[in-house]
């Protein structure tokens, strides 16, 4: 179960799938940087970036709308930026019915650009994880000089993510099974429910702690000496260098298009 929980990878044999994961990680970061550097209202630059990302999605065999649709996950956070609709100086286009807050044209431009930046950056991240197995991604981060112990910890976390999520689900199921309620009866107080949830968290913690001890013992039995060694799985081919150059050029082009207006 929960392959959807732990694995965002879409298996495939496309050009994008076969690239060195380092190239994909750096390329995705460059495109996110390009999205962040594009000024408000530079619609052609945003369009160009969307075109590039859609192109990558197509080459990767994920379909044109795959990343676009999934990238809406971060949308709830946009609420935090909503007030710039009203506080950006400019001519007011309309007023909210009851509160009489003015909505200005530059406000809409800023807010829209913010949403686009977020949407495009999330798409870049989605394409990265959809076309790269997570193990390859962590390997690439290690090669790109992220501290080795941290890489190992993140890999371990990924390895045990679904194990502990399943434990948590079993706890939740057990609670539901014991939480029958008669209609019309008052719900138990919040503090009591909080204590129950706390007890579940505590029991989950102990299970995790004991599991980590067993895992460590098993590792020592197999010769673990505190050093995490990784196989060298990829080497940069000329195709990888070309892809890296293309990614950098694309990101540069987007930033350029954003500033040439």
């Amino acid at each position, binding site marked *: 179960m929960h392959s959807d929980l732990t694995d965002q990878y879409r298996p495939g044999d496309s050009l994008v799938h076969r690239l060195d994961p380092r190239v994909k990680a750096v390329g995705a970061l460059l495109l996110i940087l390009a999205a962040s550097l594009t000024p408000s209202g530079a619609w052609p630059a945003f369009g160009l970036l969307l075109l590039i990302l859609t192109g990558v999605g197509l080459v990767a065999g994920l379909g044109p709308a795959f990343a676009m649709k999934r990238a809406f996950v971060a949308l709830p956070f946009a609420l935090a930026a909503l007030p710039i609709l009203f506080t950006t100086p400019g001519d007011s286009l309309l007023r909210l019915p009851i509160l009489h807050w003015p909505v200005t044209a530059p406000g809409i431009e800023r807010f829209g650009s913010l949403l686009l930046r977020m949407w495009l950056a999330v798409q870049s991240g989605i394409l990265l*994880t959809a076309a790269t197995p997570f193990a390859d991604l962590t390997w690439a981060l290690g090669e790109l000089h992220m501290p080795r112990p941290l890489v190992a910890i993140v890999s371990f976390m990924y390895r*045990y993510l679904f194990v502990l999520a399943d434990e948590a689900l079993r706890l939740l199921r057990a609670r539901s099974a014991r939480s029958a309620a008669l209609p019309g009866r008052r719900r138990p107080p919040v503090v009591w429910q909080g204590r129950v949830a706390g007890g579940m968290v505590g029991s989950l913690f102990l299970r995790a702690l004991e599991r980590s001890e067993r895992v460590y013992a098993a590792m020592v039995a197999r010769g*673990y000496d505190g050093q995490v060694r990784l196989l060298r799985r990829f080497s940069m081919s000329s195709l990888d260098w070309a892809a890296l150059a293309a990614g950098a050029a694309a990101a540069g082009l987007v930033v350029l298009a954003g500033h040439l207006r």
Partner: protein
Amino acid sequence: MLLRPEALHIPDGFLTPLVAAVGWALAVLLILTALRQTQRQLGERQVPLMGVLAAFIFAAQAINFPVAAGTSGHLMGGALAAIVLGPWAATLIMTAVIAVQGLLFQDGGLLVMGWNILNMGVFTAFSGYFVYRLVQRVAGSGGAARMAGAFAGAWVSVEVGATATAVELAVSGTSPLSFALPAMAAVHALIGVGEGLITAGALASLTATRPEVVRSGQVAPGRRGAGFVLVGLLAALLVAALSPLASPHPDGLEAVAQAQGFLSSGRSAPFEILPGYLLPSIDNPGVATLAAVGLGTLLVFVVAVIVGRVAARRTIDTK
């Protein structure tokens, strides 16, 4: 659904590249220190222990309970991890959690991940740990004081994380401080109650079943430098919060907002969930809220100490 985006995961594009870079620089510094500290205490157990416990925090975030009107109380986990494992180990664990959430689920951006790590990992871990220890020091180390300290620490940790997020958004010009700060602080004052209840409940169950885990204090204590980190980060936060307001030409947003009466209408309208959350005697709403958050934190702390003391006395009386 098991995975829902939390209100504090800043996505890419919401912070300017400069602000994001500052966050990464601070985060890298603290992550490297955390790696060194936990390595010293745990040795070769570091990787399996931290990795599995990071998976634990991720899974524990799915455990929730209904509070009211469709909202639910759930755990962020930074304070709990810091109380049980020590602040440096908690920093490392939360870093792994946020890294996987960002890389794998796009829950929080990649360029802005430095700030997400600071907000949800470092700020929560150090403030929660600090308040927990302080309550124990003042109210004694009995079971009740421990629970009160855990609740207060968890509540404060959420509030500090939310305040920091609001300040970062304001400095980036994404959301005016006069909106973001009261809104974030008020909403998370409620969310913090859920965090506090679960943290105290988890600590109570751990004390009952495996007291040695809690009594030995922490699996990886490492208190060295913890106070400095907290004070330094809070000072940086304060400076950042005041800088755009202290400049002679206030942020364009603020000026317009004031001119158009946005602030006065806003103050009475939707985001004043806790009445009187803004202190009326201070003119600048951002500063007022910051002061109010500080006062609220102090209040929670004092109540926690009193509850801990009274409950401790009662247990002694009945014995």
